[in-house]
């Protein structure tokens, strides 16, 4: 019995140690920013690169002396693509690490679950989630979303499919908060443009085969399929469509048709796949910086989190204090249309230090936000896969 007690005491002691270390850490002068991305689970394919591009921004700022004379510390947590784990991770970031902002929440369910913690504790939340309901939460301005909401995306993609000669469009969608609304909006746009939406199937993305879904949708005889998927399920879906002999056009989303997909699926299967994404500003120096960190074709999320970090740091510089409310108040001011156009964080910091107005436009686009935190004025890019490579066919 006495042995057991000692063991238990030892266990408790070793568990307490990191807490003690953390508290000591918290007294230094760093500005702490949290990242909450999926590193495991369904979103595990995206989170690592998102963190990488955030770290790139922060390392650059730190190497140049930090912001307001203080170093920026990034604390990265894994939301496990699960709202439950996301809430616990966010609690740690907010209560223990005392972060001023949380960057990069990806799954809409995680963002919705974490958002109340953020606005209650006055921590700024930057997200890439597309769910329409997110910016309609009573968030008091504590949410900034760099992903266009699904209504805008659906409208653009619907028009583009018509332009490409689509007459009978069907959709296969992973079960997401925006699956049904995307199809509804697309149908409206397509009908107005003389096309026809022949039906949609919502599938469970964790399935390992989609033969049933593919057979069902092909019965409707579509000439164009819209695949509202993520990368792992798209890989399976494309193979099943290929096996079924579907020869019509296939449209999907940029984050699904990424390099990882093209590397894992044979060329003849992906040939001709068209994808669209809110376009990063391809000529902007910020985008080139993301390319340098992530690779030639960074996915839209990495570009967006790059901007999350830049916006948060610029807002801190602009406000002159590092806190959630400070970022909340200043995040739109660093995109002042009357200011000096800037896309490099160091240049921006320099101008702000000199008391000038800046107009930040980043890797993901112009970074202008509406009153409820949605992105406005965003370009879209359309890519077509040729011989296993994405080729830009339109930017508008």
């Amino acid at each position, binding site marked *: 019995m006495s042995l057991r007690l000692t063991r238990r005491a030892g266990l408790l002691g070793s568990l307490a140690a990191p807490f003690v*270390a953390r508290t000591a850490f918290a007294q230094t002068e760093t500005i702490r920013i949290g990242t909450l991305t999926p590193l495991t689970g369904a979103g595990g394919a995206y989170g690592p690169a998102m963190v990488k591009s955030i770290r790139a921004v922060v390392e650059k700022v730190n190497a140049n002396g930090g912001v307001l004379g203080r170093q920026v510390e990034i604390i*990265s*947590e894994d939301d496990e693509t699960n709202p439950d784990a996301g809430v616990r991770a966010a609690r740690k970031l907010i209560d223990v690490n005392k972060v001023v902002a949380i960057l990069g929440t990806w799954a809409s*369910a995680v963002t919705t679950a974490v958002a109340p913690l953020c606005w209650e504790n006055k921590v700024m939340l930057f997200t890439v989630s597309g769910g329409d309901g997110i910016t309609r939460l009573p968030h008091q301005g504590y949410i900034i979303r760099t992903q266009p909401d699904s209504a805008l995306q659906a409208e653009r993609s619907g028009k583009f499919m018509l332009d490409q000669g689509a007459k009978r469009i069907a959709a296969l969608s992973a079960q997401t908060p925006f699956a049904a609304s995307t199809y509804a909006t697309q149908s409206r746009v397509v009908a107005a443009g003389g096309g026809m939406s022949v039906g949609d199937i919502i599938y469970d993305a964790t399935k390992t085969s989609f033969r049933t879904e593919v057979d069902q949708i092909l019965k409707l005889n579509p000439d164009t399929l819209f695949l509202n998927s993520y990368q792992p399920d798209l890989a399976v879906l494309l193979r099943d469509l290929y096996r079924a002999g579907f020869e019509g056009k296939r449209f999907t989303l940029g984050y699904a048709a990424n390099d990882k997909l093209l590397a894992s699926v044979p060329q003849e299967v992906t040939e001709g796949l068209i994808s669209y994404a809110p376009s990063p500003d391809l000529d902007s120096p910020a985008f080139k910086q993301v390319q340098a960190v992530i690779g030639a074709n960074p996915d839209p999320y990495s570009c967006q989190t790059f901007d999350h970090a830049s916006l948060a740091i610029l807002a801190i510089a602009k406000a002159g204090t590092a806190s959630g409310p400070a970022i909340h108040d200043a995040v739109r001011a660093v995109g002042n249309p009357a200011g000096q156009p800037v896309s490099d964080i160091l240049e921006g910091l320099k101008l702000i230090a000199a008391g000038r107005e800046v107009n930040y436009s980043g890797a993901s686009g112009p970074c202008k936000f509406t009153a409820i935190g949605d992105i406005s004025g965003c370009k879209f890019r359309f890519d077509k896969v040729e011989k296993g490579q994405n080729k830009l066919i339109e930017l508008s």
Partner: protein
Amino acid sequence: MTSYLAAMAVFAGLYALMALGLNLIWGLAGMINLGLVGFYAIGAYTTALLSVKLGLPPLLTIVLAACLASLTGGIVAIVTARLKGDYLAIVTLGFSEVVRLVASNEIWLTGGTSGVSNVPGLPRGLLSAGEVNIAYAVLTWIAVVAAALALGQLSASPFGRVLRAIREDEMVAMVAGKRVLRFKVQAFMVGAFVLGGAGALYAHYVSYVAPDAFLPLITIYVVLALTAGGTGTMRGALLGSLIVVTLTEGTRFLGAALPDLSPVRIAALREGAIGVALILVLTFKPQGLLPETPARFTPEPT
């Protein structure tokens, strides 16, 4: 820090409640229920929908939620009456997935994958954000202690003895004149009541329910908690849930200790650590850390 620990105490308490509910169904009655997250989800959705859509007071909706989960538990027990062991495990696992898929697809009722947000909780105006967490931790653990005492009483009562008899040998219990099915259904209903209650508390604490929160992973965590703590005892369930939350959340602090590792590696390491802990417990303490010590009948030497 205090409010973080309080928040973790809430989650540990929720796991403890689930482990207690599971303990009655599995630990005592021997029915392997891998569908517990389904009952948890039913509890969470019921209270969320009743309080958001109908505006009923949370105290009432929590009780209604637990009752509905209990009723579902009774139905599941009757439907699966002839199943045992692995087969029961598979069917109950299927049940929880059915609940989750219904929640994802019946958009008119559950909001689909967008879930139900703004579930009312404790009034935020009166208490600061930190105090709210502490209040929740206290409330959750009051529920845990109440459930542990009540279930402990039940387990020590003749009812508990019959359940253990059914677990050891159903035929013997039947021969002894016990109506096995009735006892099984009752055990399932009481267990599911606690599971549903845990789900309801969760919904009001997090203020948001969505299908993604009810993945089979939670079932695995709770089964792990009960296995590590010791099946069949209430204190085993409590200890086990504390261990699981310490493992899953404590490992988040690995990051500070290992600054050279990338966040992805740390995430993988966390999952690995949880797996290794389970293997160690099962290897060295297969009965759990606080195993059941049954009062054995020792025949006198003749």
